[in-house]
């Protein structure tokens, strides 16, 4: 087989290989991820460690892109108080019905 024909064969083979990996991964998603799932249930919180709280271990370039994360486990309050962000503001039922709710925003 000529060398250049090998390139063509490889192009097909490599494409099939990565497509097969994708197909397997997509199918695997429906299973829900295996035994690691049990720890999620037991621990009871989404706790992917997505960052440490200590500035010395963070990437300074990245910090400007990190957003406040509602003080959920694994996240951290950074520069903006997390209570200004989140569903309660987005759902009218919260804004209108909770007595003495955070009244930073009040629609006239």
């Amino acid at each position, binding site marked *: 087989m000529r060398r*250049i024909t090998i*390139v*063509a064969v*490889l*192009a*097909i083979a*490599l494409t099939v*290989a*990565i497509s097969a990996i*994708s197909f397997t*991964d*997509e199918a695997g*998603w429906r299973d829900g991820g*295996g*035994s*690691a799932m*049990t*720890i*999620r*249930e*037991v*621990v*009871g*919180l*989404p*706790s*992917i*460690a*997505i*960052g*440490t*709280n*200590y500035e*010395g*271990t*963070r990437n300074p*370039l*990245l910090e400007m*892109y990190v957003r406040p*994360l*509602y*003080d*959920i*486990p*694994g996240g*951290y*309050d950074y520069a903006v*108080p*997390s*209570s200004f962000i*989140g*569903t*309660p503001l987005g759902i009218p*039922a*919260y804004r209108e*019905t909770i*007595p*003495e709710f*955070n009244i*930073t925003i009040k629609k006239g």
Partner: protein
Amino acid sequence: MTLIRRHRNLFKYSLDALGRYRMRGAVVVVTFLIATTMISAVLFTKDGLEREAEYSVNAAPDLTIQYLKAGRVVPIPAAIGEVISGTEGVERVLMRTWGYAGIGQYTFTVIGLDLQGLDLTGGAMGAIESGRFLTPDDAGTRNIVIGKLIAGMLDLKTGDDMILLSESVEATRFHVVGVFSDQSSIYTADMIIMPLEDANAFFNMPDGYVTDFAVYTKPGADAGEVASRMSTIPNVRILDQDILLRGYKAAYGARGGVFTTLWTILLAAAALIAFSQAVVVGHESKFEVGLLKTFGFSTLDIVEVRLIESLIMGFFATSLGMLIGYAYAAFFNAPGLVDILLGWAFLPKEFRLPVFVSAESLLSIYAVTVIPLLVTTVVPAWLNAITDPEIAMRRGTA
């Protein structure tokens, strides 16, 4: 049969042409290879982390209840748990105390669980590599289960003791009864799990207070409706799964987005290189097209030849790049990339990044590589093919 032979002839000619323009092909392939390797490593890792976030959120409590004071999250009175339990649609309420503990320059997540209320039949043991998980009998014993990160850093194993400085600056001795597995590292690597009582003492929580509540709704109940029924409880903030998921996706999206942007720029540069190579060999290519048309290659034949060449080059480079990117992330933990995406300063050596080759990312990468390559090669060929062969040859030798 004749049609098949005709296309076979064109395919063979395309391969010969690829062999002739070896230098141009090599430049295009190498450039695309480098760009797709990095962009796919970032995308597959980002997709993997987002997918894990989705799994995690799916298993998370339906609602998380926090307490606000002056707009800031503060410990929540445990008594509110009874009010929440009484809300229609609520099946179970678990108290949690959690926070961060520092060891040297590193920070870990400490989680205190209400072991009485936990359903331990679900198989938490599946996440344990050595020792055991906590049981209700561990309440107040300062028995802990730790993740691989801390185990590796302090060289701890089941049966060892470790000392942490508490919030009240007291040295507190904890006993390791279990170590989490590599497979669960994405969740547990920096985690220290202890009984609720021990966490309250460690964080010097006021009596009768915890950090938050994990609320599980009854099957069939709508979490949003249950949440709205709690709206009369003053000063509570209720997080549902969507919020949590959006938070995680935002974090990974932001981090991943930086790199995706950078590498997309690189891909654009690669497309420009491909185009410039097409220009460099442009004269030769024009001449060749003119000659082929003279011999009876139709316009479609010429488009087919260039299409085959570009598809082979594009798919070879892109698929190889994606496989290398995948291997770099899945088997080597993407050194240089993972600490930026995860923000960890230190990784357990057994840790494996969750990597997900989503169909969407796969097709996106092919779209930004193969299509520009096709355009930069097929379009000029088509333009030459619709020109008179005599003129094309003349332009090619000009």
